[in-house]
């Protein structure tokens, strides 16, 4: 099949989903009211609660949710064939993905802008909040490990990427200095720093890491993993304007331009899928159900989106009617990004064997090769395109990693600060988070790590849908559109986590793994089981709340019949 049909299918699904299904939910069930004051207006504090234009929020939401997830997931999942991956991306977004993003924002808006901690406390129980926080901590740990692995494997396998990464960091730090210290014009700052970052991408092609630091260091995974976590360490402990934000600012231009022209390149080349539409139900990482459904997370549904929608976007929406284009609409755009990644993986290799050799080294190489091919259609030299693709992969992974480590630092001080004041120290708390992440990167096989991260991510999504369902019930609204997706996601993700964790711990018990892999399998298996247990406790608490709300709904009816 020609890949253009994949894009056309995506556009049709986005049109139907956004124009009809989302509109129906928005107007008939949620009954959004343009005259209703949103938390951004009611509690305007000039900082977190601030009415913001929907166009700005559209960009903000897109930048916050479109990380490495929608790119890496489809690249791995094509091992089952491109057809099941495409079907899951389309149907997952249509029936679950946008539903979760949109409903999380609406719930937070109607609940005075409360975030998930507060919402779980109010809607479920005080215990649910504590369990949810612990769940989120380990979910973020898996995210740091999975994305750290992507950064490390990209830096090792694509020798041009370290120079590009280094120059991006320099450009970002310079941008922070120019904007906040020297008070330079923003356009001048942008031009200078983006040019420096682009220069780094070019420099990577003539000064690859193996020529600069030597073959052995360039291939040393530990070195690049430490570099990634040192980067995140600075992002977590330095003032946010000095390091993390300006780097993200410069990086956003690199990523945006690369993806924009890459998509144009697809239209120019219009390649056919060369990999099989379907390979087998069961492959080395696991069976199609449930594993493929957690491997493609962000492109179909992702728990991370619900966190962004509730804690960030819901506090800035200036009208309730903006929730559909901002939260629902952006999810459909992300679906298109996932299709783009699927097209890359499915069209650039002549045979499954070639793809198999490439995926064994990690998804970064495949993505970079695809970007190189599609930018090449517009005239960019292939080695420059590969360097560009590799730095995009590093950016999308590390920008989320630094946010995760920063949050883990705050969470460590908050959760463990009462046990000992030492945990309140920013450096100690960041160090703990970084070491745990580094341990996962160095000891876990990346495909298992990705599946576990995907499982935790999707489980977070099902917990978000559970809270939305309870909120809808408490408001006396129809909840079928969140209830059934929640059940499907909960069963699927629990099955995926149990399958993967059991497989890992079985290897440990039977002595099938030794050395580093023994540590990695043990840690990943235990974290997986912890997440399953936490999710089951939350589900039990949720079921109790469900019964409570149903009884409350039945009361007026019973009173009316008397």
């Amino acid at each position, binding site marked *: 099949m020609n890949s253009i049909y994949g894009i056309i299918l995506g556009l049709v699904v986005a049109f139907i989903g956004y124009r009809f299904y989302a509109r129906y939910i928005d107007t008939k069930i949620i009954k959004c009211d343009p005259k209703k004051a949103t938390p951004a207006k009611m509690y305007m504090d000039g900082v977190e609660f601030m009415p913001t*234009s929907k*166009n700005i929020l559209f960009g903000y939401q897109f930048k916050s949710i479109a990380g490495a997830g929608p790119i890496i997931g489809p690249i791995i999942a094509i091992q089952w064939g491109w057809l099941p991956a495409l079907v899951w991306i389309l149907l997952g977004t249509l029936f679950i993905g946008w539903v979760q993003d949109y409903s999380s924002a609406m719930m937070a808006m109607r609940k005075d802008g409360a975030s998930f901690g*507060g919402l779980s406390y109010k809607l479920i129980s005080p215990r649910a909040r504590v369990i949810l926080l612990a769940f989120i901590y380990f979910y973020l740990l898996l995210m740091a490990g999975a994305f750290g692995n992507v950064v490390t494997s990209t830096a090792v396998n694509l020798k041009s990427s370290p120079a590009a990464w280094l120059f991006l960091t320099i450009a970002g730090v310079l941008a922070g200095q120019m904007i906040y210290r020297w008070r330079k014009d923003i356009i001048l700052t942008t031009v200078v720093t983006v040019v420096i970052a682009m220069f780094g991408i070019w420099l990577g092609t003539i000064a690859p890491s193996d020529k600069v630091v030597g073959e052995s260091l360039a291939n040393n995974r530990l070195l690049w993993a430490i570099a990634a976590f040192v980067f995140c360490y600075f992002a977590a402990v330095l003032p946010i*304007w000095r390091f993390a*934000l300006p780097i993200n600012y410069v990086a956003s231009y690199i990523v*945006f331009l690369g993806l924009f022209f890459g998509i144009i390149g697809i239209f120019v080349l219009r390649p056919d899928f060369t990999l099989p539409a379907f390979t087998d139900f069961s492959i080395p990482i696991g069976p199609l159900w449930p594993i493929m459904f957690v491997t493609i997370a962000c492109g179909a549904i992702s728990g991370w989106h619900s*966190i962004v929608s509730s804690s960030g976007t819901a506090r800035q929406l200036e009208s309730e009617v903006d929730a559909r284009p901002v939260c629902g609409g952006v999810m459909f755009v992300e679906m298109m990004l996932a299709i783009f990644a699927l097209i890359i993986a499915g069209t650039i290799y002549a045979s499954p064997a070639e793809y198999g050799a490439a995926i064994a080294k990690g998804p970064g190489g495949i993505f970079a090769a695809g970007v190189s091919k599609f930018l090449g259609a517009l005239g960019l030299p292939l080695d420059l395109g590969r360097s560009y693709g590799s730095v995009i992969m590093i950016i999308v992974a590390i920008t989320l990693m630094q946010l995760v480590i920063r949050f883990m630092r705050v969470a460590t001080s908050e959760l463990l600060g009462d046990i000992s004041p030492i945990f309140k120290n920013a450096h100690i708390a960041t160090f703990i988070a970084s070491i745990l992440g580094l341990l996962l990167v160095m000891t876990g096989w990346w495909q298992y790590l990705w599946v576990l991260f995907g499982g935790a991510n999707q489980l977070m999504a099902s917990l978000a849908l559970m809270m939305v369902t309870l909120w809808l019930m408490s408001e006396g609204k129809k909840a079928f559109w969140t209830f059934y997706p929640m059940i499907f996601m909960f069963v699927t993700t629990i099955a995926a986590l149990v399958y993967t964790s059991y497989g890992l711990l079985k290897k440990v018990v039977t002595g099938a793994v030794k050395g580093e892999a023994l540590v990695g399998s043990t840690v990943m298996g235990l974290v997986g089981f912890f997440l399953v247990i936490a999710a089951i406790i939350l589900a039990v608490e949720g079921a109790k709340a469900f019964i409570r709300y149903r009884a409350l709904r039945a009361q007026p009816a019973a009173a009316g019949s008397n």
Partner: protein
Amino acid sequence: MSEDEKKRVGVLQAIKEFVYGVAAHDSARFALKTRASMEHLFILITMGDMLGVPILPPYYSLRLLPYVVPQISTWKRRMLREKDLTDALA
């Protein structure tokens, strides 16, 4: 301005806002957060007696009061709002 021109300007404005949202909105939010924490400290030092923390003599507090008044309502909202760890996620 004709309808077509209005539409064109509207589309350009939307693109401009989208790019700002992708690239700089987060930076602006965090800059505001940093300024807000400085403001919290400043108001606490100058108007601490409102909360029973008499740090500056009331004479100086009263002299500063006109400058602080515009901030007080949003300051109170920020200070008194129930906060949660998950707020820090976005």
